[in-house]
């Protein structure tokens, strides 16, 4: 019995010590935290090494990053049914429209961002803020193939037998296939011509692959030409892979990646500070110079010499797409692509 009483006392004393420590710990703790979803790989690495320390220094906020692809973020928040699993999304245009339709964002107040005025018009709206621009074009191995001129080249030798084809699951895959369809007489909502062309070249192409395997296949020489975004190209080049961007004669494709606050987010104020830090000039410049080469949206950030654009204004001349028209058709295209390419 004595022993039991002693245990209880010890327990009480232990609890008191723990409580005391937690009270003592609070003043030394950061002003708070913010949890943000981030694309796995390059984005995750650079946000961890550049954005997290900047946010800590500027606002004393700890940034917790959760690596998730865009579709996984949307699926996770839908599955959580109102309990926000993270405070911020990072999304490309397609999943962004899906998330808006499903009501997954808090309304966004651009006035809370001190850097909002430094972004091109329309880059901050009622749903979120642009954070980086992406350019999509043809990626090819310059040691094995001449520079392709346009999308049509991919369907002819010497490119077609070295081509890595990926479907409509990703934003870059979808917009590239739409641009190819346009070259063969299609449009943003009519991709029928591309299915007909793919059918013709299917026995000759090097690989049909899920997007995650594209970099490895390029690195291993299984494919020597494909379509992807500039930061995928830059990160492969940084690893010593022979890879260059070719801008098709019909124009490169551009879209912006955006940050959003999750509906019911726990740390809304901190989320605004995180977004403001991510679009601030020093952070944008560091992200551009990092191996990921994330294209800035802040107008004051000088663009480096090896980029396909000399100023942000050039982006407006590139090809952009209306995702509210694409999204309703995309499930059908994905299913059709599966059926057309399956052996």
């Amino acid at each position: 019995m004595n022993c039991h009483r002693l245990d209880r006392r010890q327990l009480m004393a232990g609890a008191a010590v723990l409580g005391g420590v937690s009270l003592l710990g609070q003043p030394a703790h950061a002003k708070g935290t913010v949890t943000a979803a981030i694309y796995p790989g390059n984005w995750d690495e650079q946000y961890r090494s550049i954005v997290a320390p900047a946010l800590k220094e500027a606002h004393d906020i700890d940034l917790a990053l959760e690596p998730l692809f865009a579709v996984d973020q949307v699926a996770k928040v839908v599955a959580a049914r109102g309990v926000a699993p993270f405070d911020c999304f990072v999304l490309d245009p397609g999943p962004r429209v899906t998330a808006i339709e499903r009501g997954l964002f808090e309304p966004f107040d651009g006035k809370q961002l001190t850097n909002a005025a430094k972004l091109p018009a329309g880059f901050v709206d009622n749903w979120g803020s642009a954070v980086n621009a992406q350019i999509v074009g043809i990626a090819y191995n310059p040691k094995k193939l001449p520079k392709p001129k346009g999308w049509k080249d991919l369907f002819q030798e010497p490119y077609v037998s070295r081509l890595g084809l990926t479907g409509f699951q990703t934003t870059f895959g979808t917009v590239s296939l739409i641009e190819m369809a346009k070259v063969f007489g299609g449009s943003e909502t009519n991709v029928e011509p591309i299915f007909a062309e793919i059918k013709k070249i299917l026995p000759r192409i090097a690989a049909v692959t899920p997007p995650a395997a594209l970099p490895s296949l390029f690195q291993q020489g299984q494919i020597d030409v494909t379509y992807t975004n500039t930061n995928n190209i830059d990160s492969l080049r940084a690893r010593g892979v022979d890879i260059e961007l070719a801008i098709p004669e019909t124009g490169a494709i551009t879209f912006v990646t955006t940050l959003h606050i999750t509906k019911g987010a726990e740390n809304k104020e901190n989320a605004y500070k995180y977004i403001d830090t991510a679009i601030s000039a020093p952070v944008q410049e560091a992200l551009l110079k990092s191996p990921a080469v994330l294209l800035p949206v802040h107008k004051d950030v000088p663009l480096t010499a090896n980029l396909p654009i000399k100023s942000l204004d050039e982006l407006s001349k590139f090809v952009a797409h209306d995702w509210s028209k694409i999204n309703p058709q995309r499930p059908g295209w994905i299913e059709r692509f599966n059926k057309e390419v399956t052996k």
Partner: protein
Amino acid sequence: MAVADADTARPAARAPNEVKERVEWRLVTPLGLTYMAFFAAPLLLLLWVSFYEDNELTTFGPGQWIKFLSDPFYVGVVWRTVALGIATVLAATLLAYPLALVFYAASPGVRRLLLFIVVLPLLTSVVVRTFAWIAILSREGVVNNTLMWLRLTAAPVPLLQTQHGLIIALMQIEMPLMLLPLLAVVQGIDRSLVEASRSLGGSHWRTFFKVLLPLSVPGWIAGATLVFASATTAFISQSVIGGGRLVYLPSVIWQQAMVISNWPFAAVASVLLLVAVLTGILALNAISRLIDTHGN
């Protein structure tokens, strides 16, 4: 020992046996409840979701099941997935048995070394092992470079993104799952039975087919079950090695659930994947019972 005692004095031991059974049930209660909460309940939920007609889960009906089962493409995907499991089991069996025989004949020291080699691949992630196969099977990979260096082929042989390439990779990736139970059973086979067969004039092959093979079947059944279940559900290997032209059930589930957000259709595919795996396991159990009966 308690079981042996009960067996020898069965009528008198009935009361203690009943007590023992009650105790056993109580012991499995925590695991049972965990399975109910985290396995059976989500499974029922999955079945429930599959009977919604729309992505927003508002209308109830069999529409998604009809869509799946009336589309030859999706029915074909189910068959292709099952065939991949069977092919991987057969390939793994062909390579596992010779090693099992070497293991059976080996000294304890060599057995320990072999066991270490068998377990070694499990120490690296399945993702790493899968991506390593790209380096092995690609156009400029180890296999093609060797074949071309030996002048056995003029141009690279297509291995990556082919069904046979995928089966080769899966066979290696899943091999420890086949070998571990098989070696455990082979290790326990009484050597005097083999010696008796040999001394009575049985050839090596006859001894293998009449003595070693039947006695090792329980290990093979366990290994084959694990390999079949693992190969049919190996999403990463199927997508990375098989590529976009070989569509299996796991990639249909991923696309429908994550990219298209059609959860009911993904639920139908998930239930069918489960049925396919369970059918395979039941078939293997039936084989096991058949051999038992035949042997007895």
